[in-house]
């Protein structure tokens, strides 16, 4: 179900500005990879190229390859819409559709595939997805209420339920806890540990403790100075990155000497 992701010489542009340069990395299936680095170093931008959301921004374009299971996402006959159905995404700020109920939110992606699903199948899927996101117990009595009435942490888990309802291969998380309190953060981190058995997860975070807690591997992005493109400094097992990184810049960053 989940597959290996490989990027090769990936350069990411906003118009003529090169925001991220020469990223080559390989991500194993069913693992959690954390991307850390100072603000503006391009880790979120990089994340958004993995489901072709980067090109939604006017002027956004990519050079190089991103391959999932050997298939280049940027190949000439690849439909970005199809890519996004395979690669789910959770955003920094929880964004359930305000006009939909909790149940409708969970089913939103499934309905897009134009699949007509029966009422009982839909109910099953809603329950399964909400259980998968550790939210079922809290909302099972108010599935027809608007999703925007939930707390921030619940909304974020609803967004995760919505993303996993379509059974993607990969789950991208762009600072999913930065708008949440510590208890909601803990709930999401527990959830990430559960989801790892089924999905390949890539998470961008500013919180180094979080990266250390949830991830198997950690990649460190940095930019030499403002106006220069961000680069992947190194990527290695999380324990190695946090105990004995190869690069001095990584050591400086994780020990809080800059950034």
């Amino acid at each position, binding site marked *: 179900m989940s597959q290996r992701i490989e990027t090769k010489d990936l350069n990411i542009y906003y118009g003529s500005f090169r925001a991220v340069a020469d990223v080559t990395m390989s991500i194993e299936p069913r693992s959690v990879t954390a991307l850390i680095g100072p603000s503006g170093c391009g880790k979120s931008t990089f994340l958004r190229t993995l489901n072709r*959301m980067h090109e939604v921004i006017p002027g956004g374009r990519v050079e190089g390859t991103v391959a999932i299971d050997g298939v280049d996402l940027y190949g000439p006959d690849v439909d970005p819409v199809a890519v*996004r*159905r395979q690669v789910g995404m959770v955003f920094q700020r929880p964004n359930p559709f*305000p*006009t939909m109920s909790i149940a409708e939110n969970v089913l939103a992606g499934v309905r897009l595939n134009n699949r007509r699903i029966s009422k009982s199948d839909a109910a099953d899927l809603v329950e399964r997805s909400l259980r998968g996101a550790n939210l079922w117990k809290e909302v099972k009595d108010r599935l027809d209420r608007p999703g925007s009435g939930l707390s921030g942490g619940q909304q974020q888990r609803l967004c995760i339920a919505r993303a996993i309802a379509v059974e993607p291969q990969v789950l991208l998380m762009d600072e999913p806890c930065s708008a949440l309190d510590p208890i909601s953060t803990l709930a999401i981190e527990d959830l990430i540990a559960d989801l790892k058995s089924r999905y390949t997860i890539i998470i961008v975070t500013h919180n180094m403790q979080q990266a250390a807690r949830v991830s198997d591997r950690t990649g460190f992005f940095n930019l030499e100075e403002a106006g220069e493109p961000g680069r992947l400094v190194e990527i290695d097992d999380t324990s190695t990155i946090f105990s004995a990184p190869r690069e001095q810049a990584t050591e400086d960053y994780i020990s809080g000497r800059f950034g």
Partner: protein
Amino acid sequence: MTTSVSAPAALASAKRRTGRGLDRGFRYLAVGSGVLIVAVLASVAVFLLIRAWPALRAGESISSEVGWIPAGSSVLSVIGPLVFGTVLAAIVALVIAVPVAVGIALFISHYAPRRIANALGYMVDLLAAIPSVVYGLWGVMVLAPMLHPIFQWMVKWLGWIPLFAGDSAGNASNPPRVLMTAALVLAVMILPIITAVCREVFLTTPPLHEEAALALGATRWEMIRMAVLPYGRSGIISAAMLGLGRALGETMAVLMVLSPGLAYSFKLLVASQQQTIAANIAAKFNDATEMGVSALIATGLALFVITMAVNMVARGIVARRKDFSGAN
């Protein structure tokens, strides 16, 4: 910073006094404006009621005094068809205008390259700057001759739908001074306001919701259906109601285009069937007797009531799904 610390007492008291005076003045202005609106509204309603009363009280005898009221009819029995004609024309105009306006607004906000979008926006706004007399002339002299063959075709193939039924000979009227022509002119006239409001609403869709839809694998149209349209729903309704209000009250264009009648008729393609309240007032006011004016004011009172009812229904629709509006 240091000076304000060195002389705090004097400065604070001086500031507070002027501040308080302005504050009070502004409160009077705000409250006064609110009261004024209610007073104006009430005085219009009272004026309409007082001036309409003689005609309403006269009963059927009014038909001998006022030429345009058919013999044996009271004011109330002609208000009926006039209200019917007014609402029918406005609704047909709305049914034509809203989908087009939403389409143009979506094109401007989500499809067109920025430069084309701006140019198109200006062009739609320019439509609002054309005087309604010009629309009337255009409707009679340009639009109507073009429409006749189309109407004839509709009567022939769609005549089984009551709206598109022909006259007794099975034809569409020629020249087509019919309700459909008037409604088309009205639709063009209300297009700018509906488009402008919809465009603003669509442009304020939070990018978060749009990205949520796109990241789930929505195509552009699916994204619009999932995020943009639901978010803009109450805005679209408000825009439609603004347009409806304008269509209900529009006078000159209807007066010039429509051949009037006083029937409860759904025939959109046959002349001399319906008339609108506003056009009827404009047509009959100049040579009206005192009782005639009273009868016209009674019809004006009906228009006032309809417009209020439309606004209240619209507010009700907007409020009903408040929880889901995205405002919270």
